[in-house]
Structures are given as structure tokens and as C-alpha cells.
């Protein structure tokens, strides 16, 4: 009996010890920042790229002593690229992990839902990768975004379509999500403006692998330009299956597809594909970008930073900058969250994507993507800005039929 009692007492003591050690309010506690992203699922690779950029930034800040002598800790919430999972994840970050601010986020459909939760909970959210205009145009004052929205993303491309390409026929092949449909809306309007005939609007689901049905139909219709609003895996498979079905068109994507994995999968098959991009390696003349690429490659051996690593890096840098400018944390979570929100509004910082400043809706307006094209140099696919002329690294190349391509 005595032994049993002893065990119970020890058990209680241990439980108490655990409780005390995780209790709040200790001075050396790290500063928690919530990071949303589809860390599992078919977009996991892209989220991983974003995370790498973020970890690079946070490790550098922590190595220099963190913020106010406290380390910054990233707490991840997995959205699986599904709005319902995203809402559950962000609620946990806000109420249980008590994060000061939520960053990251990938996929428009998810961010439309999670940003609304943050607004209701009065917690600032800075969206890293999502282009649907809806996210910032609902008058929410706790919502910010460090990536261009779809009109901004596509402005340069629209200009190019109107002044250089002038296609007579176009078609659409896109993800059946807010990402796909918002891009479709903009390009559909642009097609009407330049008098191009819209031959087809075809959709697919995230995670689809067989696009032969859609591509066979497109081949029958022969559009000059096909808008392909897809992510890495789907976009690479579409390029491959286009070759298999002998279909030639000028593919135009948003740019989120041009990741390291995309080039590994599609290889030279993606020659001539175009998109609006913010690839950090494009503007190597910029010392900030060059420095970022160097540090990134030093930290992750053999890895090449893509658009998502750079967007993730900038996103977390903006958040840490806003926290830094508070001066010190009050200990009252809501007051601190509001102070961070007020500081975010006044953000003005030069980062890898360019200068970041927010307009009244919380949308960055200073980051400008350009139309890029995949061209083959020394047998390897590379991205070049092709418009406007003053920024172009190479001239636009018209897609050749498959049997005339040298590769």
C-alpha cells in the first residue's frame, strides 16, 4: 500500500512540474510567430521552399540575439491546401499557441478563409504566397500581403499580350480553385480587350495527373496562346503531355510554377513556356538578391532559391521588422498584436522581391513581376525577362513545332 501511495504522490509531483515548466510569462520565452502552409499534400514541396527561406531569415536573426534578447520561434500550422484545415490550424495558432502574428500561407482559397479568422480574432496576418485579390479587398485591417495580387502579377504580361503578342485566339487551362479562377477572370477580360477569341475554358483539380483529355481538346481548337494557371507538379505534367500529344501553343502561366522541381520534372520540354515571375536569380545585379542567393546556397547545399523561398524570406523579414519597431513587448497579448498591426502599416523595407510598402488595404504595391520565358541555353532551361525592353534579358522566341526543336 505504501508503495502505491508513494507512486501516486510522485505522479502528482511530476504532473505539477510539467505544468509549471510550460507556464506562461517567463522572460526568456521565445517570441512565437505562426506560419501557415500546405506542409503536407501535393503542394508540400512548394511550402517547403517557403519554409527554407523563412528559416534562413529567422536563424540569422536568432544568431544575432533575436528580438529584444528573445529568440524568434516559428510555429507551423499545416493547411494541407484545404480551407477547412487552414481554419482549424490558424485557430490553434491564435488561441493555443498565442502567436503575436500569423505569416506564411499558400493558396488563395485557404488564405481567404484564414485571413477572415485572423480579422475576427484581431490578430495580424501577413500572407506570403497567394494572388487572389479577395484576400485584401474586403476592408480587413488586420490583413496584409507581401506578394502581388493577380492584377499586379499579370499587369506586365497583359501589357506584353496587348503590345507584342496580339493573339487572335486564346484558351484557358486552370486549377479549379480561387487561384485558377481569379487568373482566368483577369485574362478573360484582357482577351476581350485585345479582341482575342476565347476558344475554351478547361479546369482540373489539384492533384490531377492525367491532362490528356484537356490537351486533346485544346489540340483540336488550336489556340495561339493557352493560359495555364497551375502549380509545379500539374504544370510540369501538362508540358510533358503536350509533347506526347504533339500540341504546340504559347503557354502562359502565372509564375508560381517555375520552381526547381518544375525544371527537374519538365526538363527541356518546358522550352518557350512563359509566366509572370519574381524569381530571385533573375535580377542578380541587385546586391540584396545576390547576397540572399549566396546565403541561401550556403545554408542549403546544392539548393537553388526559387520564387517561394524568396517570398517566404521577405514575408518573415517584414513580420520581424514590424515586431522590432515596437521597441518592447508589453506582455498584454492583444496590445502587442495591435501594436504590430500598426507597425506593419508603416512598413518600408528593401528585400529580395524589391521594396515592400503596403497600401491602405494592406496590399504590397511596390513589387513588380515581369513576363519571363523559358529559353534553352547550353542545353539547360533558363528563365529570361522578355519584356519590357528596358529590363529584358533576352528577346521573345516564338514556340516551334515539336519536330523542329533541337532538343
Amino acid at each position, binding site marked *: 500500500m505504501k508503495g502505491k501511495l508513494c507512486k501516486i504522490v510522485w505522479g502528482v509531483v511530476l504532473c505539477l512540474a510539467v505544468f509549471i515548466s510550460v507556464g506562461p510569462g517567463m522572460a526568456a520565452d521565445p517570441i512565437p510567430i505562426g506560419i501557415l502552409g500546405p506542409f*503536407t*499534400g*501535393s503542394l*508540400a*514541396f512548394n511550402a*517547403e521552399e517557403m519554409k527554407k527561406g523563412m528559416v534562413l531569415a529567422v536563424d540569422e536573426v536568432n544568431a544575432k540575439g533575436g528580438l529584444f534578447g528573445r529568440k524568434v520561434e516559428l510555429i507551423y500550422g499545416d493547411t494541407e491546401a484545404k480551407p477547412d484545415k487552414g481554419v482549424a490550424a490558424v485557430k490553434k495558432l491564435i488561441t493555443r499557441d498565442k502567436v503575436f502574428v500569423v505569416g506564411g500561407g499558400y493558396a488563395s482559397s485557404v488564405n481567404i478563409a484564414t485571413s477572415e479568422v485572423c480579422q475576427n480574432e484581431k490578430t495580424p496576418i501577413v500572407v506570403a504566397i497567394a494572388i487572389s485579390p479577395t484576400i485584401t479587398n474586403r476592408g480587413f485591417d488586420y490583413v496584409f500581403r507581401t506578394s502581388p495580387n493577380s492584377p499586379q502579377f499579370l499587369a506586365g504580361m497583359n501589357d506584353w499580350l496587348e503590345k507584342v503578342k496580339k493573339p487572335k485566339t486564346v484558351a484557358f487551362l486552370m486549377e*479549379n480553385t480561387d487561384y485558377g479562377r481569379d487568373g482566368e477572370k483577369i485574362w478573360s477580360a484582357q482577351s476581350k480587350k485585345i479582341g482575342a477569341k476565347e476558344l475554351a475554358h*478547361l*479546369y*482540373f*483539380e489539384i*492533384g*490531377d*495527373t*492525367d491532362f*490528356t*483529355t*484537356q490537351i*486533346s*481538346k485544346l*489540340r*483540336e481548337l488550336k489556340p495561339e496562346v493557352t493560359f495555364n494557371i497551375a502549380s*509545379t*507538379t500539374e504544370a*510540369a*505534367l501538362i508540358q*510533358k503531355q503536350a*509533347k*506526347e*500529344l*504533339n500540341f504546340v501553343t504559347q503557354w502562359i502561366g502565372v509564375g508560381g510554377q517555375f520552381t*526547381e*522541381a518544375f525544371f*527537374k*520534372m519538365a526538363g527541356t*520540354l518546358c522550352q518557350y513556356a512563359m509566366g509572370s515571375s519574381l524569381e530571385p536569380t533573375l535580377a542578380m545585379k541587385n546586391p540584396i538578391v545576390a547576397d540572399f542567393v549566396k546565403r541561401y546556397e550556403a545554408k542549403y547545399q546544392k539548393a537553388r532559391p526559387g520564387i517561394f523561398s524568396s517570398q517566404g524570406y521577405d514575408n518573415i523579414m517584414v513580420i520581424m521588422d514590424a515586431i522590432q519597431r515596437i521597441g518592447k513587448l508589453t506582455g498584454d497579448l492583444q496590445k502587442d498584436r495591435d501594436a504590430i498591426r500598426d507597425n506593419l502599416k508603416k512598413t518600408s523595407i528593401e528585400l529580395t522581391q524589391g521594396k515592400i510598402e503596403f497600401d491602405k488595404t494592406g496590399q504590397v504595391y511596390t513589387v513588380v513581376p515581369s513576363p519571363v520565358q523559358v529559353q534553352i541555353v547550353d542545353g539547360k532551361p533558363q528563365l529570361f525577362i522578355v519584356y519590357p525592353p528596358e529590363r529584358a534579358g533576352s528577346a521573345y522566341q516564338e514556340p516551334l513545332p*515539336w519536330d523542329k526543336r533541337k532538343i
Partner: protein
Amino acid sequence: MESLFVQQVFNGLIVGSIYGLIAIGLTMIFGVMKIANFAHGDFSMLGAYCAIYFITLLSGWTGWLGSLIVAAAGVGLVGFFVEKFLFRPLLTRWTDIDIIMLSIGLFILLENGARLVFGTAPKMIPDPFGSKGVNLLFFSTSLIRLLCFLFSIACILCLQLFLTKTKMGVAIRATSQNRNAALLMGIDIRFIYSLTFVVGSALAGLGGVLYGTIFAVFPMMGAMPTLKAFAITILGGMGNIRGAIFGGFILGVAETLGGNYISMQYKNAIGFIIIILVLLIIPHGLFGGKERK
């Protein structure tokens, strides 16, 4: 327009043959052992990863053919151990729920394990012919797609021969039709169970390599073939191999034609609409007959 129709039918047949190959393994295992294996598609994923690692050792089409053999053997081996150590202890208890739970658990384990071991980046099994195209009278495709199609047809024919012409194949069919009668005829049921699971898993592995060659290889890739294989199995009749073969082709063609002429958005839904209709109208499936209860 006629050529578009032919093209779409052909697209459907190619995809259908691969789904059919995966579904045959599923339906065999169900027919003989009454196990609904929700991790079946993940065996395909394992096969695809086997191929990815093996194909770097040999070059050209020998590497591709070799990777098919390695994948079938490797996944067959995994199937052997999974049956022996996981499913067999549960089979004696004869409750369906814990077998289903086990296979769902296995599916989660394999998928997350793959993410940990192989990483999340999608990969492709390199095409030994460099996506070389083939343009026939009414349609075009790639050489590798045509080969995958022919290969899965060949596999299906070999399996049919095995099941009808060999003693072991007859024993498998006998066990599937009536377990107790087979036992009384002196058939070693435990061996048949093991054999069925190994053959079924190996077919899933082969299907995975074909799927990974035409499409892509990533840890989550098993989910879609699992769902399609269940749709096909229900369509053709649970446990019916002929049903799985025709079910695969019917689903593949129904999806492409439905996508082309009805709506692209509902392309994936067609499989599930078929499941619901079949369950409502002909619950035994197209080839189910009434031999099973």
C-alpha cells in the same frame, strides 16, 4: 471532330489499363481474403519509388524494364511481410472493422513514411525514349504510353493464364469461390492467402511504375489510384477479375469522354457517380453474378 473522339477513347484506354492493373490486385485480395486494402495504392507508390532508385543504375530501356521487375519483386516482398505479420493475425478474428482500420493505418503510415524518407518533391521516372511521339492515323501519343498500355495488357493476359491454366491459379480461384470447400479439397489456405497477397501487391507495384512513368511520383500519389481501383472494383463486382479488367477500361473511357463532352470539372466525379449508380441498380457489379454472398 471524329479524330478527337478516337483520341479521347484512346487516352481513356491507356489510363484505364493502368487503373485496371492496380484494381486487379485489389479485387484479387478482396475476392480471396475478404480484405479491403485501402493501402493498395500506396503499394503502387512504393513500386514507383523502387523504380526511381533502380533506374539510375542501368540506362535506356533496359533500365526501365529492369525497374519494372525490381518494383514487382520489391513490392511483392513488402506484401509478403505485411500479410504475414499484420493481416494474418487479424484474419482469424473475422471482424471486418479492424482489418479496414489496419489498412487505413497502413495507408497513413506508408504515405507519411514516404514523405520522410523520399522527401516531398515530385519526381518523374525518366522516359527511356525521351517523350518520343507516335502519330497514328486518328490520334497521337508517345511511344512510352503505348508501351505502358501494351505492357499492362500483357500482364493482365499472363495473370489470366496463371489463374486458369496452373494448379496454383485454380487453387486461388477455388479459395475465392468457397473457402471451406477448398480447405476440404486439401488446398493449403494459408499459402494461398500469402500467394494472393504477394501477387496482388506485385501488380500494384507494376501499376505504380507505369503510373509514375506516364505521370509523376510523389508520396501522395497512391490516394488517387486507390480511389479509382475501388470504383473499378465496385463497378466490375467485388472480387471479380474480369470485372476489374473491363471496369478499368470503362472508367478510363467514361472519364475522358465525360470530361470532353459533359464537363471537365466533373471528370473525377464520374468514377464516384458510377459507384453510386452501380450500388443502387446492380449491387453485385457488372460481372459480380450471384456466386458470393
